[in-house]
């Protein structure tokens, strides 16, 4: 199939960007979306033009590198996948596809479709861990049985890949789903309860300092999350935060 691509091009963080139109021909429906961009880039290189820069690495939906807004949706038209898992069979001949980077104050553009998501790392550094040294001299792994339902819920929260689709989809650019996923994972497990108070207070504080917006419960984050992280986690974090605020 033949397609028209409208892609955000921006040389670096300080220069202004703009949408640029490209035509691409003979795209196979079996290609992944990023493989289609590979073809475009090879074409640009052959013409001695600069290829489109985008983040990508594992190309199997788990590393969380890829991050683009395709036709107004984070990771494109299909649901529960990252854009590297999107295949061209989701489009048809003659389509025009708009490709943009994540847009959020806390995610400044580095180049073209690449944004800086180090704000996510800093939130994790503020409290996204259990303070246990890696000596290996902990108690036996089976010493504390954990309710399977809690363990499964903790796992579901822990599957967040840190891609930032939640922020990009939110009209307020809120990072609540991302932060809530980590807070929930630990809040659901006995190991994480010990420092639950400090964790939620510190992570939320850092989240606010990074310039992410507030949550107004529109739920766009949950809809666009490639891993299906549930809004339930935000409710849990709010409870944790409230309880911690009284204590703290």
């Amino acid at each position, binding site marked *: 199939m033949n397609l028209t691509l409208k892609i955000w091009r921006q*040389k*670096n963080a300080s220069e202004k960007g703009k949408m640029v139109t490209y035509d691409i021909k003979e795209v*196979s429906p*079996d290609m*992944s979306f*990023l*493989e289609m961009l*590979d*073809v475009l880039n090879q074409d640009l*290189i*052959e013409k*001695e*033009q600069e*290829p489109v*820069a985008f*983040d*990508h*690495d*594992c*190309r*199997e*939906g*788990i*590393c969380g*590198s890829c991050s683009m807004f395709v036709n107004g949706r984070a990771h494109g038209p299909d649901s*529960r*996948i990252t854009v590297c*898992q999107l*295949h061209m069979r989701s489009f048809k001949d003659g389509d025009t596809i708009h490709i943009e980077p994540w847009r959020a104050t806390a995610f400044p553009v*580095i*180049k073209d479709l*690449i944004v*800086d998501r*180090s704000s996510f*790392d800093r939130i*994790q550094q*503020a409290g*996204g*861990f*259990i303070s*246990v*040294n*890696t000596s*290996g001299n*902990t*108690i*036996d*792994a*089976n010493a504390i*049985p*954990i309710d399977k339902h809690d*363990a499964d819920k*903790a*796992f579901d929260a*822990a599957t967040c*890949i*840190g891609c930032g689709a939640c922020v990009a989809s939110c009209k307020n650019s809120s990072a609540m789903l991302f932060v809530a996923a980590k807070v929930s*994972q630990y809040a659901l*497990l006995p190991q*994480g309860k010990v420092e639950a108070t400090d964790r939620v207070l510190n992570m939320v504080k850092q989240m606010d300092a990074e310039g992410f917006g507030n949550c107004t419960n529109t739920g766009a984050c949950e809809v666009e999350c490639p891993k299906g992280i549930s809004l339930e986690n935000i409710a849990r974090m709010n409870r944790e935060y409230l309880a911690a605020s009284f204590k703290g």
Partner: protein
Amino acid sequence: MSILDSKVPEGPLAEKWKNHKSNINLVSPANKRNIDIIVVGTGLAGGSAAATLAELGYNVKAFCFQDSARRAHSIAAQGGINAAKNYQGDGDSTYRLFYDTVKGGDYRSRESNVHRLAEVSTNIIDQCVAQGVPFAREYGGLLDNRSFGGVLVSRTFYAKGQTGQQLLLGAYSAMNRQIGRGKIKMYARHEMLDVVIVDGKARGIIARNLVTGEIERHSAHAVVLGTGGYGNAFYLSTYAMGSNVTAAWKAHKRGAFFANPCFTQIHPTCIPVSGDHQSKLTLMSESLRNDGRIWVPKTMEDAKAIREGKLKPVDLPEDKRDYYLERRYPAFGNLVPRDVASRAAKERCDSGYGVNKTGEAVFLDFAAAIQRYGKEQAHVKGLDENDLTLVTKLGKEVVASKYGNLFQMYEKIVDQNPYETPMMIYPAVHYTMGGLWVDYNLMTTVPGLYAIGEANFSDHGANRLGASALMQGLADGYFVLPYTIGDYLSNDIRTGKIPTDSPEFEASETYVRENLNKLINNKGTKSVDYFHKKLGKIMWNKCGMARNRAHLQEAIEEIKQVREEFWKDVFVPGAENEYNEELAKAGRVADFLELGELFAKDALEREESCGGHFREEHQTENGEALRRPEYQYVSAWEYKGQPSQAIHHKEDLVYENIEVKERSYK
């Protein structure tokens, strides 16, 4: 006599590690504060090492080329992590894990290292649970296990099909805690482009900031490489797009010997190649072989009909299917080790029984498992076990709970529903057992330069067992390196900061800059990918699942030619001082083009078949790998200017605690 000193401690096997830890030199907490360590790579090995070294009190600088430490490719490991916990009471023990790993590696790994790995495996699980890693649990609240290939016990701990992700996020969280405390300084989007050697010791690195293009000097008292494997030399593999050999190769060029480069794992269960546009291959976890049955049609006619779409696989009756692994290896069946399963798939497809358009695919079928689980569920719930619709529905639910994310991944890529029709799979390059040669302390032949995880060669011999990569990465990073490195650093407590304005740093930086200049100013006519694909084809066709003398000799010549052509004709767009992925890629491919030749040379030298290295000249009557006792050594290559001039060193492998015998899974 070999110049390789493996520094394996004296004493009985089971006591070596304990005694060694008690006897090596330590660095006091006050002195650790004056010692800097660079860790390159933030996967399971690098991430866990960085965290533990920082906890111990060292100043750590950690580097990764990704935009965050959390994105290292360990994240993509699916199936699980082994540990000799014996929670299932099925006869597992440290010795059995040790034995399975040595046998699985076809008696080409170092006994003492593997035993240590088995010993610390149990600590890993305790540690990860304490960190909040949400492993799968049973209804009683205790940890669940499953089986992997090449073993007869259930010792694999898992978190659905995302075990690597959960373990890596555990290590990442431990790192974050230390970054928060200021003990780790994190350099994301940085690529290491050289090791700096001062007075014969590794004292720092030259790194390129991938955003600004700046070349930076970083000094330390020791350098640790946890930079993963080099499977992307094959172009198509299950590795991440950015996975590369550059750090290890630069270390090799600075004096670190490269061991067993030809030992590559080709994983049997990957999604087959669909076309020329393909950029990477996707693994389907080995855990699927717990329940999936592998087959091809018994007759060529049926295979042809399926290939042409005239016959649906579900319509082929049982007696017309060849469950070839169950037929050839009744004891282990579908759970034979990876090298054996991959070769068997290739054998069937080469004989004309392949089941997709390209003829390079076999079926992995869950229909039987769905029925088995469905009946079990119906029985448990007191429902009608003979109601086929009900049983199928219940069975699908169980299979979904075990492998849901893998099935979803398959469906997204192939556009077929694996609950309704068997998956199609084919082997793909997945892991490299070879890597930088290290001694028992995980130090390379360059003093102060360490290699951990997949980047070293030590534990998996000629074939790695499933769920052992995660185990090794975390064992090296959490529990081995942080202690053995102290022995070396105890001599550095009075050294003070390593200056970065020495002639050695100057020379290394110049070397890096010249290399980048050459690439960017070459202004040839072909893209980096053009050469990478060309190399990949040679590697896959001539150094892949089956190798022979003639092919390997051709490969050496052809790779040399591609390399020459690359330096003459490569075109890299953009500039040096900006974000430029093509430039980063060009540097990596240049290194693959050197490694590839050494790889073929190593495969040519090893006149035997063992594990993943199958030489057609050396096979049994039944087509099994034929090991030769005179090759019971590690090949370690010393760099001498060109891959063709590399000098071959041998470390003899001695097995005192295990009887070396024919590796049979029948």
